[in-house]
């Protein structure tokens, strides 16, 4: 290099054989991000993800609001999975402020988190279907999401941005006869899920297309620090709900889904199978939940944390979400760092797409369970 460029800038070398494609941000297969893909014929020679189109500085905003005011805006990165992204924040703040959570609230939180996980995975599955050109798989999950959205609406009053979990419990108690309704809908949903298997996962064309494409080996999955379904599809048995159980997950009956193949097909199948486990957890939690009791520990207004720091994580639909909260005797946190699964899985993208065919790009990209808005925060 002859000229000294400032860091953050770089020179592009132009090659006639290589074509540069800007996949996104205005592309039906990109989401709110851009992939700068270089193709040689039909093969991708390099991929440079360029997120940040919806970066809102949630971490910076959190430094200006107190612990309670932070709740509504911290769920905004993934409004489809809002309970799960609030969960570690609540756990962390409870640890900082030394708050005990009532037993019933713990169960309600778990139910809300699992319902939300299903909502997220169905949305993800719908887009995965349309990315592969399977329009029926777009319509079915998008329609079945309504089941869970209705349930969460009954619980929290909002359809999408619930802000249901708060430090010290949940915002309000369950409505009456919620248990029967939830049980009925979850059982119906389990029947529907089996139909997905027939039309989508056992489809020979889908298998031929995704099996063996974008293989991430176990070693690489660990080395790249992936998380969530990407990690479990590569044969690593790691789920925060099992390894570091929070709230009442250790009392509940479920198992971790692990597949060894590490290809696009396994990555697309793991979240689907996890929905069965979510249904099991919901049914089990409904059974074991205390039928009455307080659901929220009252906080004093404007609570302050000590000179302390805390790192708490939960398992979300896209992998582990970790909150690193530093407090300094003030009602506002000194620093909040959100480490999200999408951002951690982003590193796979240049890695997996290199050498793939262009036709595999949507399958690999969306199979990473990547949510651009969450990665930007």
């Amino acid at each position, binding site marked *: 290099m002859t000229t000294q460029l400032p860091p953050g800038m770089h020179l592009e070398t132009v090659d006639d054989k290589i*074509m540069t*494609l800007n996949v996104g941000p205005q*592309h*039906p*297969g990109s989401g709110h991000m851009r992939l700068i893909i270089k193709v040689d014929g*039909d093969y991708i020679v390099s991929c440079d993800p360029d997120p940040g189109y919806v970066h809102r500085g949630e971490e910076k905003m959190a430094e200006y609001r107190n612990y309670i005011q932070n709740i509504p805006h911290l769920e905004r990165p993934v409004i489809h999975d809002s309970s799960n992204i609030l969960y570690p924040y609540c756990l962390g703040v409870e640890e900082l402020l030394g708050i005990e959570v009532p037993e019933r609230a713990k169960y309600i939180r778990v139910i809300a988190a699992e319902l939300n996980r299903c909502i997220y995975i169905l949305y993800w599955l719908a887009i995965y*279907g*349309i*990315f*592969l*050109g*399977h*329009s*029926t*798989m*777009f*319509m*079915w999950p998008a*329609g079945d999401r309504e089941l869970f959205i209705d349930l969460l609406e009954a619980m929290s009053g909002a359809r999408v941005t619930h802000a249901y979990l708060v430090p010290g419990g949940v915002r309000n108690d369950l409505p009456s006869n919620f248990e029967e309704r939830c049980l009925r809908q979850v059982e119906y949903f389990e029947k529907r899920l089996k139909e997905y298997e027939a*039309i989508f996962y056992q*489809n020979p*064309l*889908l298998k*031929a*297309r995704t099996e063996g494409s974008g293989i991430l080996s176990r070693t690489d999955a660990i080395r790249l620090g992936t998380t969530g379904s990407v990690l479990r599809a590569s044969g690593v048995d790691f789920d925060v709900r099992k390894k570091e159980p929070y709230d009442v997950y250790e009392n509940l009956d479920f198992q971790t889904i692990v597949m060894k193949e590490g290809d696009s097909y396994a990555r697309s199948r793991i979240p689907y199978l996890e929905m069965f486990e979510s249904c099991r957890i919901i049914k089990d939690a409904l059974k074991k939940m205390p039928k009455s009791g307080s659901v929220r520990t009252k906080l004093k207004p404007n609570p302050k944390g000590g000179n302390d720091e805390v790192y708490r994580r939960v398992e979300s639909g896209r992998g582990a979400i970790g909150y690193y909260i530093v407090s300094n005797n003030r009602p506002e946190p000194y620093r909040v760092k959100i480490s999200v699964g999408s951002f951690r899985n982003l590193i796979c993208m240049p890695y997996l797409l290199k050498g793939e*065919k*262009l*036709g*595999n*790009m*949507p399958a690999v990209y969306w199979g990473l369970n990547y949510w651009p808005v969450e990665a930007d925060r």
Partner: protein
Amino acid sequence: MSTIAPQFRLSRFIGSLFDLIFWVILIFSLVGLPIVFIVLFYIKLPVINGQLMTPYLAMTWMADPSRTLPIVKNFMHTTIFRVMAFPGFGFAALLAAATIFVERKFLAKMQLRVGPLYCGKIEGILQLMGDGFKLMSKEIIIPAKADKPIFWMGPLLFVGAAGAFVSLIPVAPGWVVANPNVGLLAVFAVIGFFPIIAVLTAWAANSKWTFIGGLRALHQMVAFEIPLILSLLGVVILSGSLNLSQIVESQEHFWWIAFLPIGAIVFFITILAELERVPFDLPEAESEIVAGWLTEFSGMMYGLIQLGTYLKLYAFAGLFTVLFLGGWNGPMVWPPFPQDIITQGITIGPVTAKFPGLPLFDQEMLNGTLWFVIKTVGVILLILLPRGVFPRVRIDMILHTGWYKLIGLAFINIFIALGLLYAGVLGPGGLLH
């Protein structure tokens, strides 16, 4: 004072009347009269009641059906009618439009949705018309660095080629626009134009997505043209003709699909690929390459491409019917025309009306059309079905399928046909003839 309803003045009113009369006369003499003379020159007008029918007697047609019907009947046997209306463009476009609507409703039912619902009160029947008006009223945007002549020509050429394809399909005995002796070869020649149009428009739009899409379309169509041609050779061998009408006539007793199922399957798969339909819609794969070679089209240019696509769909389905499903052959289910009307006329109270031109269509033609439409619609539904079931395949998979598997199957099909021919079972002078 208002400009909406200015004060009435008689002189202005009379002036406007004269103005109107002037324009009517001017337009009639400049446009109407030449049309009349062209009609007189080209169309042989009938003699009715010992009097030559001239366009000047046009007013009397409307009053007297006995005069109208022979004119209509005469018109129906002109080439213009065939090209524009019945076996040609109008009929095909109507079926194509019905296909679009049926596809949307059919897919919606498969996916547990409703589909078009509001436009037209009854199940959204007018949705298509609304979409058409929307497309017509939209602005046509041409990319700044596009190669404009080719870009403009693309949709027109596409519709033209599709129309040429449609014109080769025989619908009923004697009802076909063009009936060349080598009809099937003409079909191959027309199909060969589609990849050129795709790749030229893709290049002309000067965008990476269209270019990739165009190259994909080219790869796919070229790869599937060969099994398409090979899979139809079996039919040619057995029927001993390249003329599509003669091929239909050769299936009077049994359809070729009974003997050549492999050829029919290969042909069906190649139809899906040539039409760029799911699961072979790679040239328009929206999650990979935006909309493929259609990315830069807007407004009615896109509408024309869509029209051409569905005309092509109809033509391919019709070709499948003609070659494998016996075309217009079928049991006579259409009721015969009531002879009373011809001999005695219709009596309503005191008035008896006679219609000397009836019947307009003969029974055979209507029956043939009915069977042809039924079979073609069945094939069209089969072509639509995979869209709700299959995901898109990858380019290497599609090429592998085209070049390895389908060509092999097509050759097996040819050997079956040859075997049947040489065993003396079928073919000219065979056992079953």
